[in-house]
């Protein structure tokens, strides 16, 4: 056996895990197991992010997606999964339709992904590339200073390269609005009807 490219090995491992558990989400009928497989799939995706050099995004994926959104999802599952509602099966006809749609979309995306020759392999190999300090550059980019593009030669391009400050502010306000809205939407209204949902806390 020749020199194993460890990057490829781990990519294969994480890629198979991510795709396999995504398939598990589709094929499973128990909602709690679906949530668990989704957790593992998103965790494997985070590993893929780390492999591609995006360590900050990978850590963010773990914290926000897996640690936040999926815990929220599981809370929702626990609050609404009572007895016969845990598995609602889909009819065979809908599965066939879904498979056709999914299959054709997959074929299109697959042919697009493999079409460009320049994408088939990494230019210059992956072995000894310096790891970048991405966190600082991301932070400065969010504040409006694109410090990763300091060597941009074209003055017009440089002038148009604004940072991400405005989207950052918009997203912050958006999160605040969502927080208030979701808390208002999900407030308990009728105390008489469903006793089970309110006595969990």
């Amino acid at each position, binding site marked *: 056996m020749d020199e194993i490219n460890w990057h490829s090995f781990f990519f294969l491992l994480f890629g198979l895990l991510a795709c396999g558990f995504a398939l598990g989400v589709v094929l499973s009928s128990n909602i709690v197991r679906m949530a668990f497989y989704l957790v593992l799939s998103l*965790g494997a995706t985070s590993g893929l992010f780390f492999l591609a050099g995006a*360590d900050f995004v990978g850590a963010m994926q*773990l*914290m926000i997606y897996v*640690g936040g959104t*999926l815990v929220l999802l599981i809370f929702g599952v626990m609050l609404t999964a009572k007895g016969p509602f845990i598995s609602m099966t889909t009819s065979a006809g809908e599965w066939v339709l879904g498979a056709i749609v999914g299959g054709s979309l997959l074929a299109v995306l697959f042919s697009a992904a493999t079409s460009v020759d320049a994408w088939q392999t990494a230019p210059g190999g992956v072995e000894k590339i310096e790891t*970048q300090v991405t966190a600082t550059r991301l932070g400065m980019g969010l504040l409006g200073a694109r410090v990763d593009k300091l060597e941009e030669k074209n003055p017009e391009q440089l002038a148009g390269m604004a940072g991400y400050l405005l989207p950052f502010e918009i997203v912050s306000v958006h999160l605040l609005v969502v927080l208030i809205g979701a808390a208002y939407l999900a407030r308990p209204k009728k105390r008489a009807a469903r006793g089970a949902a309110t006595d969990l806390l």
Partner: protein
Amino acid sequence: MADYLQQFLPEHWQFLAYVAAALVHCVLLINVVAVGALIFIWLERKVSGRIQDRLGPTRVGGKFGWLQTLADGLKLITKEDLMPDGADGMLFRVAPYVSFCASFCGYLALPFADNWVGARLNVAVFFIVAVLGLEVFGVILAGYASASKWSLFGAMREAAQVVSYEVPLGMCVVVPVLIAGSMDLVTIGEMQAGWFVNWYVFHDPFTFITFWVYFTCATASVNRAPFDLAEAESELVAGFHTEYSGLRWSIFFMAEYGSMFAVSGLAAILFFGGWNGPIPLTHWLGLADSTHPILIYLGNLLGMFNFVGKCVFGVTFMMWVRWTLPRLRIDQVMTTCLKYCTPIAAAMFLGATVWTYFIPGGLIIKNNYGSVREGWLLEAQPELVPDEVPAVASNSK
């Protein structure tokens, strides 16, 4: 290490060297967790005994009962493996391991000495906080899969608690990060080299208070008393691990003690200088500035003992608090988080930012050993080649 091992292997099996190196690192880290859990369980029984004015285990292994945990472990291994009737088989079995994996992954980015780290991540602090928050999955799965009311209630309470306390925990953790200018734990530790006045906990009064808030949030985050209503014996039988016995239960507890050690380790590096001691011993012995590999190793070894000592002190402090304070109710837990910890953490963050902007050197004039952040980027971030003496921002005068 992989390159060294490659010399011994025949032509086409070179990859085994990497596997062996990875295994050695893994085994070292797992030893920390496993042996640590062993020692901490014994320590907990001794500490709780002394606080309650009794002796604790004294029979197994001599006067201090040192082998008590070993005996406990043997008992747990030989217990019958039960699973409740209505339980979801796969989820029931997998839940303890999810918890343990989440707890163990935190050790990947935790440095024990200068550059002695599993993987030197640029975003180490963020990674550890993110991964320690994943432990809640094992708890939720355990609570659900046990098909028992008590387990589900305990699991839901614990999930709510852990997720809520991640917010002030994150804010507290950001304060040393902004003083150091990097999320890399090795860099944060290096910048606190020298006397104990270089430690960030003494950097400014805001960071001092932040440490106490961090410790409170960390204790809540690992579900130790007084925040341990998820396992409250007097209320919920045993909470989420009611139906777990034998080895599965012990995996949950290795996860808990592992998390306690990891959170203490994070506190030690962020606030107490990590492997840099109260006195610059390695500098006095000439170990820090030498280039001879054996001497560097020795200096790092001393640093590691220093670090582990601080972690053990942190864990002991958590045990002390556990057996002293009464347990909080769930609404009190939530009140503490939302009405006390979060606003205090936010105010401290603001204060520390303003302080660092005007007085970057901190309260006490630094001496020659530590470093102060200059500029928006710590230039000369070293490549990830081990055993190289890294060069960070210049020492302050």
